[in-house]
């Protein structure tokens, strides 16, 4: 397992102007690492469906690279999406999975069959062009540049150190974030879209 923050730092130099969507407890570190906030997008709203929304964006903007940092708890809620993605085969879609083997935001309860699932294997067999698994930072860092240069859809499963939150909701640290609507408006201006 490796730290999400370190993973994001290794990814950022190879972002290549991508639109980036980061989800889950691990995903919150992205905003501290990102160098291009205008291309950072929030598409949350229904657990398990951010993956679907990211696919829609990739289909709408085939000239833009779309990078999703997904989480395994969310993907398990909507596993059929990997077949949907593979079926459309968006060449500009990079599907990173941050797998911390638990529901970190609800106290760290394990996801079903947490340690024995081969997510990359499922993505590859569903029809992704390529799929990778990483459980350490060094190996991830050595490969991320090449991964971002290939055509998608690509799936990258990563074992992340869980950052478990167990304090009552009202007592948790709140960091300032941009709302979904604000990120959408900013990105659409960046892409020259109106209306």
């Amino acid at each position, binding site marked *: 397992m490796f730290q999400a923050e370190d993973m994001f730092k290794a990814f950022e130099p190879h972002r290549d102007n991508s639109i980036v969507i980061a989800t889950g407890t691990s995903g919150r570190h992205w905003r501290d690492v990102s160098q291009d906030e205008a291309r950072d997008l929030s*598409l949350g709203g*229904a657990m398990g469906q951010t993956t679907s929304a990211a696919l*829609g964006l990739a289909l709408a*903007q085939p000239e833009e690279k779309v990078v999703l940092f997904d989480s395994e708890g969310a993907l398990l809620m*909507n596993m*059929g999406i990997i077949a*949907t993605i593979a*079926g459309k085969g968006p060449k500009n879609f990079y599907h990173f999975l941050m797998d911390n083997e638990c529901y970190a935001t609800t106290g760290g309860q394990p996801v079903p069959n947490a340690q024995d699932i081969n997510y990359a294997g499922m993505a590859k067999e569903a029809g992704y062009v390529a799929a990778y698994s990483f459980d350490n930072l060094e190996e991830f860092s050595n490969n991320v540049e090449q991964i971002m240069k290939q055509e998608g859809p690509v799936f990258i499963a990563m074992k992340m150190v869980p950052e478990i939150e167990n304090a009552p909701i009202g007592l948790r640290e709140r960091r300032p974030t941009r709302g979904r609507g604000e990120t959408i408006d900013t990105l659409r201006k960046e892409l020259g*879209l109106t209306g």
Partner: protein
Amino acid sequence: MVHQQAALLKPETMVEEFQKNGVTHVVTIPDSETNYLYELMKDQPWLDLVPASREGETFAIALGLLVGGKTPVVLVQNTGMMESGDSIRGMALDSGFPLVMVIGYRGWTRRGVISDSAARYTEPFLNAMGINYYLVEHDEDGERISIAFEEAKKNKCPVAVLVGDEYHGFNR
């Protein structure tokens, strides 16, 4: 005795309405009754079909398409719409984008008693979500589809088109 309707809702009418209203993508899960519509849509060079694995995906895929500047329609059966409750809430109602959702009204009938619970709960479901809807049964109802598009655009919200002819001729 099988009842024959005088003027069925032709799939060509639906596709014409899509083109008239600038639809670029249809995000869909076909059912056994919509095969002919599916084949017709597949033949339209201006239209991109996005087959989904579960109906909840369709509303989220549509949101991504809308964010990216496209004009999607969701085409699913009423059973799938009900499965999609949280996705409709979080990805359609809360998004502030216009979306027309075309819903196959399984079990609906103008005659006798509706026995299929899929039909019984369809309109209460839409009412609970605060989603306005228009029933289309015949070709003459085609303009209601454009009305739904206009309303969705004006209010930046989802609007449903219920296809009530599904059981007896919508696709043939």
